[in-house]
Each structure stands twice: as C-alpha cells, then as structure tokens.
C-alpha cells in the first residue's frame, strides 16, 4: 500500500513552504488546484488576456478561440451528443437557475409539478421551490432507498402529465452514491418529461457519459473538477436552448436592438452575456487535460480503493454513526462519507481535526432538508481527491478517536 498519492506532488499546496502537513478531505466542497491548472491560468492572464467574441484583432480572436475550443473540449469530456449545446456559466448554481427560469418557468401553471429528490443540494432545490411558490404549483420530493440512492419506482409514481421536469443529482453531496440517472431519464422520457442532472459531485469521479445518460440538461462547476471557481457548464440537449429566452441580459446576446425591442441571437452565446470569464474557461480546459493525461481508469481506481478503505475504517469505530450505513447492495462506492460522532457536535470535530491539519466539512452541507429527514442538524463529511492516500484516512481515524475522547458527553434525557 502506497502511503502517498502519486499525484500529490502536482498540488503546490502540499509543498514544504505551504501546507505540507495538510490532510485535505473536503474535495466535495472544492478540489485543490494542480500546478498545471494554476500555470495555464497564469499564462493566459499574463500573456493572452483579451476580451473574447467582440474584438477583431488577433489577441481577441485568440481569446474567442480559447472559449470555443473549450466548448468542444467540454463536450468531448462529457461525451455530449452532437447537436447538443454547451453554455459556460459562473457555476452549477447559475446553470440550474437558467433551466428553472428559462426552460421550466415559462411553462408553469397551478396544475404543474416539478420532481426532485430528497437528497438535493440547495442549488437544486431552491430554484424549483421558488418557481413553484410563484405559480402555486407543486414540488414533489422523490424518496431514497435504504441504500441512499433515489428510489426510481417511487419517483416514477410521482410523474404525471403535469410534471414539467425531473431535477436530480447524479451523486448526492451528502451521501456520495451514484444515482441511477439513465434509468430515471428513460422513465421520465417515456412520459415526455425533461430531466436535469446536477453533476457537481459526479464529474470528478469517473467518466460522465451524457450520450448514455440521455438527460436533457447536465450541470457542473469547474472547481469540483480541479479547475477554478467562477466557471461552470450547462449542457442542453438538441435545440432546448433555442426555445428558451435568455436569463441574464447584457452585451453580446443580440442580433439587433433598438430602444424599443431586442432580437436575441440563437446560440449558446445567448446565455453568456457580457465579458466571458476566459481565464476560468482556460483553467477548466487545463483541468480536463490534466485528468485525461492521468487517465480516468487510474483516477477511478485510486478513489475507489481509498473509498473502500475509508468506509471500512469508519465501520471499525463504534462511536461513528454514518448518516447512512454503507450497503453492500449498492454497486458503486461513495466518494465521500457523512457521519456523526456519538455525543460530539460536528462543529467540534471539525475544529479539533483542523488543529491536527485535517480539513473536513461539518454542517448541513447545503442539504438541510435531507439532514432534517435523518433527524440531525449537522454531520461531518469526509470526501476524497486525487491527492489523498491511505495515510490521510489513518490520520482521520486517529483524530476522530481523539475528538471522541475529548468531547464525548452523555446526553441528558
């Protein structure tokens, strides 16, 4: 068993002059940045920065090309069907809001309903809740199976002629299992219902294959894929985009405008008003190249080895209460685990772990209703990345023991 990851030295944060002792177990929140990505962004910012899509001079044409080649690169990465379209956004959150406001909202009425699951991130809950509230429509919540994935049978029963969209995560950011998204798309499409997949937690953990999934919309953020913040993606199947009005309005989205009216262009650019975040797109493209160079086979094996180890080690600690017991019937291993320590507040665990240079997330992880369902306020989440190793998990286990010793109290009745 190798004690350090072969790729750890690609991440400058672990260098001697920075945080050599850091044990980073919060990749589900944001991935640390490989030097390749930081270098590419630096190089662009220093030597190639210009406004894309609007200038006629070479520097600007080059920036445009970076964006448009980036679009192709992302399409390839997602194995997006040809004829589909990709929009660069500021992140998953904006991507989902675009679909809610521009694809679904125009069709809303009081009889309509929208189906999500009980394990959604607030980014894939609040936009739907709000358009339902505005139209007095119904937000339906598909339950989970005991194994922590969306219950497809139960979901199927929620779908009817008035369902406008099914919006679910590919992988929940609290439970970490891969949902049966292809099956759900089939169910929904049989009834003529569109499906959005929130891929924020899925993109870093295996080959996303949109052609196979068959969804109508797919969303993710660059920073969950070892890229930078401020850059995300919205995939839309076929000509969905051309039937949607633009969301944010600004420069570069019109064919013709007078003071009285505007005629919008018909291309993904309609959803990319104003100046493109080219440096963000450059970072995303470099991240995809970096990961492709490693090979997705090696990446998924690395993460699944670690994840087996993590699940096993936590199972050995009797004071660790996972939100959901790992179930051998689930085909996939989670890339993250959320749990509580018996009689210890998650907040204190995170602080104590921090004092030992271990970074985990504590709280409701932007999935408050899911925590309410489990009857808890908060949990600790440990999530994995390329730089992690068995050693990190060993350190986590020791620190959890310490935290338990230090803090555990018997709750009063």
């Amino acid at each position, binding site marked *: 068993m190798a004690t350090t990851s072969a790729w750890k030295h690609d991440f400058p944060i672990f260098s001697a002059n920075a945080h050599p002792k850091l044990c980073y177990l919060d990749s589900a929140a944001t991935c640390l940045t490989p030097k390749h990505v930081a270098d590419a962004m630096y190089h662009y910012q220093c030597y190639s920065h210009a406004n894309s899509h609007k200038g006629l001079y070479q520097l600007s044409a080059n920036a445009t090309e970076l964006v448009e080649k980036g679009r192709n690169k992302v399409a390839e990465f997602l194995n997006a069907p040809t004829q589909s379209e990709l929009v660069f956004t500021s992140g998953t959150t904006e991507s989902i809001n675009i679909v809610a406001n521009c694809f679904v909202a125009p069709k809303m009425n009081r009889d309509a309903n929208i189906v999500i699951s009980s394990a959604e991130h607030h980014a894939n809950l609040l936009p739907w809740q709000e358009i339902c509230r505005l139209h007095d429509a119904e937000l339906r919540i598909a339950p989970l199976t005991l194994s922590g994935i969306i219950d497809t049978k139960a979901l199927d029963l929620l779908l009817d002629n008035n369902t406008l969209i099914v919006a679910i995560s590919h992988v929940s950011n609290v439970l970490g299992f891969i949902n049966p998204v292809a099956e759900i798309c089939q169910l929904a499409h049989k009834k003529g219902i569109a499906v959005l997949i929130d891929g924020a937690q899925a993109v870093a953990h295996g080959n996303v294959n949109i052609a196979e999934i068959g969804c109508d919309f797919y969303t993710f953020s660059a920073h969950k894929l070892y890229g930078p913040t401020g850059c995300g993606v919205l995939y839309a199947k076929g000509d969905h985009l051309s039937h949607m009005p633009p969301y944010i309005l600004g420069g570069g989205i019109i064919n013709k405008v007078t003071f009285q009216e505007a005629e919008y262009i018909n291309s993904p650019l309609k959803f990319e008003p104003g100046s493109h975040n080219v440096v963000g797109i450059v970072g995303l493209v470099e991240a995809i190249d970096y990961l492709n160079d490693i090979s997705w086979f090696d990446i998924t094996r690395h993460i699944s080895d670690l994840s087996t180890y993590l699940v096993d080690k936590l199972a050995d600690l009797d004071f660790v209460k996972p939100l959901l017991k790992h179930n051998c019937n689930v085909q996939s291993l989670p890339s993250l685990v959320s749990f509580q320590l018996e009689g210890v507040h998650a907040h204190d665990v995170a602080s104590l772990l921090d004092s030992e240079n271990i970074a985990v997330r504590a709280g409701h992880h932007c999935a408050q209703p899911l925590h309410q369902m489990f009857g808890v306020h*908060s949990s600790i989440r440990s999530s994995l990345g390329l730089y992690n190793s068995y050693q990190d998990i060993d350190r986590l286990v020791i620190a959890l023991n310490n935290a338990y010793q230090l803090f555990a109290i018997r709750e009063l009745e």
Partner: protein
Amino acid sequence: MNTTAGLYQKVLLEHHKNPLGFHNKIAITHSATGANVVCGDEITVEVNITAGKVQELAFLGDSCAICRASASMMCQHLLHQPLSQIANLIKVPMDLIKGEYTAAVNSAECFSSLAVIKQYPVRMQCALLPWQTFISAINNKNEQRG
C-alpha cells in the same frame, strides 16, 4: 498532541463536560432561542427574573462545545446579579470573545479561555450565541413573562 492547547482550553472543556445550568428546570419568566446558521448550533436560554435580579438561569439545545461552555460560564457569571448590572457584566466576556477587550486582562481572568476564541473567527459566533440569546431573552418580557 496537546489536546487542551489551542481553542479547547482546559477550563472550557471542563464547562463543556460539566455545564452549569444545562437542562436545569427553573421557573421561567423570560426565554429566547438563538441559532448559528453556519454550524447549526441551537440554544434556548431560560431565565427567572424576580425582584430585579437574575434568580435562576438555564439553557438547553444542541450546540457545540464552545457554545455550551460559553453558556455554562454565562450561567455562572450572571446568577444572582441585579438586572441593572447586566449590561456591564455582559460586556467584558463579549468583548473578550470578539477581541475588543482593551483593559488589563487580569480583571477578566475567569474568562481567559474565552479570550482565545478571537483567534478562531469562525468560532466566535458560537461563543457569542448564548450571550446574545440571553439579551434576547430579557428583552422578551412581553411574550414570555408567565
């Protein structure tokens, strides 16, 4: 590892493990509930104010060690104090937590473990919560007076 160094000072851990006023049953005249969005701390502070004095003080809720210890110290500190003194009495520990305490520290020695918290800005709110909730409670006369 020196577990009692850093944020979790010995005194603080003592209060956390054996909190004063936690789940005490008292004759409530005033109470309030406060929450900390970031970590999900929730605390209810219950007070009995009679004859212009804090006669009894208790708290409950699901909260972290910092919040809990801070609440316990508060119960110790404010018990039997006259209402007229409360504003002054609260100022020292709250300023200490926020790192705004400028006077000589020895006058506040009993709170020395609270003074460390200013070095951990994310946890500041945890330590402040009981005190803020106490303030809400005593302003809650109209609704809560039994």
